């Protein structure tokens, strides 16, 4: 499978973001989670894993801008829209169920996890409707 330049950049950006996420999460858990650091520095350390995940969202956005193959770009747009609908739908329904005490509380960052899972659902939708999941040449 051949990747074009935009796809290579995307893979590199996601790899850097995820490596940063793992590193900053372990630092935050160790220093903030165990109470070794407090105050403004604790807030900064606790923000870093989230900022790293934002890096993945940015990478997806850049791929949408830089992808020169219009069909591949359309596949990614569809995939992202399905992911967004998937994540927001579950988060909304869960929020109302949680508000009336029918389900336990779930941390907000799970919406990001749902969105990444939604990319998989979007990929499946592309495969079922267009016969390809796209990605590589």
């Amino acid at each position, binding site marked *: 499978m051949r990747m*074009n330049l935009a796809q290579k950049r995307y893979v590199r950006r996601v790899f850097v973001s995820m490596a940063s996420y793992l590193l900053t999460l372990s630092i935050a858990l160790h220093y903030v989670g165990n109470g070794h650091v407090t105050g403004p520095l604790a807030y900064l350390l606790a923000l870093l894993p989230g900022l790293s995940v934002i890096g993945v969202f940015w990478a997806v956005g850049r791929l949408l801008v830089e992808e*020169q193959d219009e*069909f591949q770009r*359309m596949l990614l747009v569809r995939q992202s829209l399905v992911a967004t609908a998937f994540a927001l739908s579950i988060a909304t329904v869960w929020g109302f169920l949680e508000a009336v005490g029918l389900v336990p509380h779930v941390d907000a960052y799970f919406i990001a996890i749902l969105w990444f899972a939604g990319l998989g659902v979007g990929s499946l939708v592309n495969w079922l409707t*267009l*016969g390809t999941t796209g990605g*590589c040449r």
Partner: protein
Amino acid sequence: MNNRLKVLRAERDWSQSDLADRLAVSRQSVNAIETGKYDPSLPLAFRIAELFALPIEDIFTSPTKG
């Protein structure tokens, strides 16, 4: 949108990958256009027409006529 891309490609003995390379798109794009699952943009349609040295309407069938 119906089109003659597969026929034109076969006449030149090009694979989908050959055509994709000439158009600087992915093989999946060529396949999606050939099977009518994806309608190319006007710029890509012009690139295809110029590659085969044919008018666009000789390659793609107008949806109102096809």
